[in-house]
């Protein structure tokens, strides 16, 4: 018989539209992070480090990169005889075929997968946070409380609490009330979107609410369980946890890695983060290069200057180029003499010689001021930026652009060029 005490369901189907052109062609969990990782590496590594060896990854939006990255789970030791990692896309059935319409709906559509493993507990995770967490400790806590649901929650500054889902607890950490983005928060414990359910409670809730359109954990399942009087506890987490849902927080989380002793330390022996490493060679720093306060991935060749930046694997930065306060993802080629200031340049992008990114003064975005508000030049993957053009601040570029796209050789601050298939 197949039996797993706890299995994990990792929600990785979201687009992450607030990452703008970065997620135009890939799901957010597959976006590069920290020079060699992808965001989903963090929850996947947490799973295996916590002894959770059965993980269903629910995909929907642009899954190709995720599928190839995860494969059969070899980098995380999740290639198992029983269990391991399974990619769970939406599927067609004899009647009522559906996309995943909400987080809980996605889990509901995979009841059969979960039942295969006869789990006692199910861990619900999302693929868009950077953190290290021992889910086994959380499970111990769940068991000790004889809980039906345990929600991981972390204290946030009270003035920011109104941006989060807030839980209010009694003296035993049992949750008495929920407030979604309250104007006047009564507690500073924010839900992290990490749940452990006892299997009967989860199954019952999913089945009962299966008809709810867009069934969601935060909006429907948890309130339902609460309404039924189930034992819901808050598990307080006090380590590093970063939501990388906006361009600003994504950029910040990367930059925090280059601190002398980063709060989120990738260099510790304990609790390693695993990823698919297909670029092996060492990096080369040339005689005229300058590299300061940066992290740099494998196989990258640096001939120019790099300061306060996170550079991915397999990148080339040409002679005389200056890159600062920026994120350059893997396989990019930055031409000679290029100047890049405060930019996020996604994978496999080519920046022609002498181009300047991040010039002039900040201007609010004419394209999507909600997404592009952090004074960053954001360049989508596989883009091309021609030689000698100037790109203003707080801009977005995606696709193969040519000199004609830049009137007078300039993309003004706040403007954008989003080619073929661009989504807002």
């Amino acid at each position, binding site marked *: 018989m197949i039996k797993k005490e706890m299995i994990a369901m990792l929600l990785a189907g979201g687009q992450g539209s607030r990452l703008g052109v970065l997620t135009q062609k890939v799901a957010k969990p597959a976006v590069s992070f920290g020079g060699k990782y992808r965001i989903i590496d963090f929850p996947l590594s947490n799973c295996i480090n916590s002894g959770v060896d059965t993980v269903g990854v629910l995909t929907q939006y642009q899954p190709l990169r995720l599928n190839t990255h995860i494969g059969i789970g070899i980098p995380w030791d999740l290639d198992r005889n029983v269990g391991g990692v399974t990619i769970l896309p939406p599927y067609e059935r004899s009647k009522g075929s559906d996309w995943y319409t909400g987080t809980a709906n996605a889990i509901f559509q995979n009841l059969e997968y979960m039942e295969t493993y006869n789990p006692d507990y199910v861990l619900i995770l999302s693929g868009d946070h950077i953190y290290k967490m021992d889910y086994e400790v959380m499970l111990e806590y769940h068991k000790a409380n004889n809980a039906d649901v345990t929600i991981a929650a972390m204290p946030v500054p009270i003035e920011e609490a109104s941006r989060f889902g807030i839980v209010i607890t009694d003296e035993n950490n049992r949750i008495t009330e929920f407030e979604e983005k309250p104007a006047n928060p009564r507690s500073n414990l924010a839900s992290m979107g990490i749940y452990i359910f006892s299997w009967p409670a989860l199954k019952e809730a999913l089945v009962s609410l299966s008809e709810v359109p867009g069934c969601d954990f935060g909006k429907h399942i948890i309130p339902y369980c609460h309404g039924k009087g189930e034992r819901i506890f808050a598990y307080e987490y006090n380590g590093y946890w970063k939501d990388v849902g906006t361009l600003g927080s994504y950029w910040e989380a990367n930059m925090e890695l280059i601190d002398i002793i980063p709060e989120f330390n990738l*260099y510790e022996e304990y609790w390693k983060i695993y990823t698919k490493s297909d670029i*092996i060679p*060492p990096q080369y*720093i040339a005689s005229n290069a300058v590299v300061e*306060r940066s*992290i*740099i991935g*494998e196989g990258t060749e640096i001939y120019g200057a790099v300061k306060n930046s996170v550079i991915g694997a397999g990148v080339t930065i040409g002679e005389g180029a200056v890159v600062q306060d920026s994120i350059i993802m893997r396989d990019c080629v930055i031409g000679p003499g290029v100047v890049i200031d405060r930019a996020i340049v996604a994978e496999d992008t080519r920046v022609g010689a002498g181009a300047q990114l991040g010039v002039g003064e900040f201007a609010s975005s004419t394209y999507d001021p909600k997404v592009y508000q952090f004074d960053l030049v954001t360049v989508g993957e596989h883009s091309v930026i021609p030689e000698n053009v100037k790109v203003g601040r707080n801009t977005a570029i995606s696709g193969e652009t040519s000199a004609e796209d830049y009137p007078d050789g300039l993309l003004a601050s706040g403007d954008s060029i989003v080619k073929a298939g661009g989504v807002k």
Partner: protein
Amino acid sequence: MRAIGIVLAGGNSKRMRELSNKRAISAMPVVGSYRSIDFVLSNMTNSHIQNVAVFTQYNSRSLNEHLSSSKWWDFGRKQGGLYVFTPTITAENSDWYRGTADALYQNLTFLKNSHEPYVVIASGDCIYKLDYNKVLEYHIEKKADITVVCKDMSPDEDLTRFGQVVTNDDGRIVEFEEKPMVSSASTISCGIYVIRRRQLIELIERCAAEDRVDFVRDILVRYKDLKRIYAYKMDTYWSNIASVESYYKANMDFLKPEVRNFFFKQYPDIYSKVDDLPPAKYNPGAAVKNSLISSGSIINGIVENSILFKKAYVGNNCVIKNSIILNDVYIGDNTVIENCIVESRDTIRANTTYIGAPDDVKIVVEKNERYTL
């Protein structure tokens, strides 16, 4: 595939000095991210050779660890695999491998039980990229009994540690001198051989019957007039790392763009065991020039014309020049290292100085206590 592979990785060499104290040469870390044997294994897998046996003998712990999973080179399939053969005591034999031919003889069942018609034999201590199929095609075209991969070297190099060959116009080897006192020719054997499997079994059995043990001396040299032994000339990068000088030089060769381009950028790739290390980190005070840096390293000082292997830590105000720092070395603050090879897992105390000469590289072995995170 038409061939099985045999990698000779048992060797040790006094020329490696202290570096071979703790590992076989084939397990020697090279070029930051690799081990020497990765090159031959990658060449095998890239040539679609699926069955590969590695013969080990001298201090093979480090090598075994590296080969503990064959997935890195895509071996370990239902058809084929990576086998590690160490000498074992059997009913017929209680000896170590007394030589390369003896090693083959002791594992003759592997040769006999295979079905591929050819065998590619190569050593684990050379850095090169080669499609063995091209050698095999040449072998068949020349109707050769044995094909030896050779390379024309510059006559000013010291070639006395290699086998030297002289060929006729057709490419057939007419003279073969192993490690001569004075080198007379500038074409050397790269230690890579292609031979028909049945032919090899026959030669090895005859060798054993005569109590001969060495493949080069007792087969290549002895049979050169009797068998059709051909030289396949290789014209791309090749170097053997089995001496401290050549090891140092081969590593430093990778500071040249053409060498990096050939190995790192051109198809096919060289594979190695992946260590899951974070990207290299450059802190304030880091000043790196013309150097190769591997993942997991943290740099706070000056590094010039050097190669840092994985997980090197360079403290504040350090100056490292023309040196090779092997895996997992901790270098305390204000330390100066020039023209040295620092052995892996060393801990170098702060405020120390190690200086070798450009033509006499110093090997640093320091086993101090380490108090770090």
